[in-house]
């Protein structure tokens, strides 16, 4: 997925710690990592040191960065900065092609144009060398 730089990051910042550290660092380099269990085949997100299906040690797997919008809301009231200054915006759940689902924002289109089932493509915003944050925009044909 494409990596975009931001001049100033003012959102709450993931600590990028614990079992998820490889996920956050990979996102800063443009790779979207999920976990895949070698024992039972289960795929999961967010990262943990345990397969939540069978209890084994999961492996990392690079996801395609493509998905579909599962559900969403248009946030129209949030008293907390920096979000207050960005209203309205879309918070969505994205079903990855590989199976797991993750939360994200949908950018690159009007909030009224978002719909369930919408094909989505991931991009990363680099916050630091250790942390990239995944965002989503409508997938263009062929992407």
């Amino acid at each position, binding site marked *: 997925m494409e990596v975009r730089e931001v001049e100033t990051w003012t959102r709450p910042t993931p600590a990028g710690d614990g079992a998820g550290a490889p996920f956050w660092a990979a996102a800063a380099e443009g790779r979207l990592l999920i976990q895949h269990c070698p024992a039972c085949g289960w795929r999961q*997100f967010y990262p943990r040191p345990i397969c939540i299906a069978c209890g084994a040690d999961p492996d990392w797997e690079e996801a395609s960065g493509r998905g579909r919008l599962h559900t969403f809301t248009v946030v*129209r009231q*949030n008293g907390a900065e920096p979000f207050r200054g960005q209203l309205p915006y879309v918070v969505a759940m994205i079903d990855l092609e590989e199976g797991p689902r993750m939360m994200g924002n949908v950018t690159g289109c009007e909030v009224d144009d978002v719909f369930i089932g919408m094909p989505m493509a991931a991009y990363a915003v680099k916050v630091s060398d250790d942390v990239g944050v995944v965002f989503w925009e409508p997938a263009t044909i062929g992407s």
Partner: protein
Amino acid sequence: MSDRTPVIVGVGLSDYPKAPHLDGLGHHAQALQRALADSGLAKGELDGYAGVGMGADQAPTFTEYLGIKHHRYIDGTMTGGSSFEFHIQHAAAAIRQGLCEAVAITYGSNFLSAMGRSLGTGGFLSAGQRVAGTAQYEAPYGNTLVGSYALAARRHMHEFGTTSEQLAAIAVGVREYAGLNPSAMYRDPITVDDVVGSRLIADPLHKLDCCVVSDGGGAIIVTTAERARDLRQPPVYVLGAAGSQTHWNISQMPDFTSTAAASCGPEALAQAGIRPDEIDTLQLYDSFTITVMMLIEGLGLCPKGEGGAFVAEGNLRKGGRVPLNTDGGGLSSCHPGMRGIFLLAEATRQLRGQAGEAQVPDCSIAVACGSGGWLSCIGAVVLGKDHP
């Protein structure tokens, strides 16, 4: 043989919806005083405690503050707003087992006086704040508490054709009962048009789909049917209690149209030997209109996906098949951060026949069902007027 059937014998509510003269602990204390007075039980008889707080103070602080010393049983289970339904499940087992004789469950919060109405959309995080743990997978995206429920509502609409007007019918019915409660925060009648015409907070949820933010507290005293014989109030029997969980963080919700009520609801009803159509009143966690819809579907009041039609037919209204939230609920009366204890208090009031103008006729079975977190942890309690 002593009759150790668990019963609720005392209920007390502290001052609400706005009580700037009380801090959170003060709500616990006032509610407990009122529950003790209601029951006729002496404070020294309490040898068990359950409770939870919104902040740093938790069960061991509350027992110290309230002077429940040398207790033989303590439960600080925290599942969000449904904690108190889990506390009943545990207290009932403890009473049956003989671990203790009388359990006080308390809650109190000065949320409105201390924090204003920031709970739903004020955000818990500040700009640039470093967020660790499981919350870091959601923190950068600016979701709100209302937004989490909106994600479920949107999906329910998509899968089942549920409409904003159907969700609004829930708020309208609860407001009608709030009109009968002199303490309720909002008492003027509203219409479906008022709800869907109120401003969108997080699509598809409008302002009037959301509960109030208030101050308040409650206390419940649970003991044995044996001890209840010479107490002040008719006992209310715990016929069934079960709880379960599907996720904690909203982004981990496995099915955005289904809650753990689908498992713990039938379990609690089976313990009681009650069918869903035998319930006389529902006291359900109405943090948002969608919360109620998902709970009634889980409890089996109607098939999954048919909640919209069920509420639009007026089944949950005053005079309907199974009246909902007869105290005005969280939607119109009182929601001090967590609401689960008020569900138990109102169910008890109904089963005692003490609900005045809001009394459900011939009320012998009430279900209190709490939802904690973000539709995460559900606790279902079946209460009855008659000895099982």
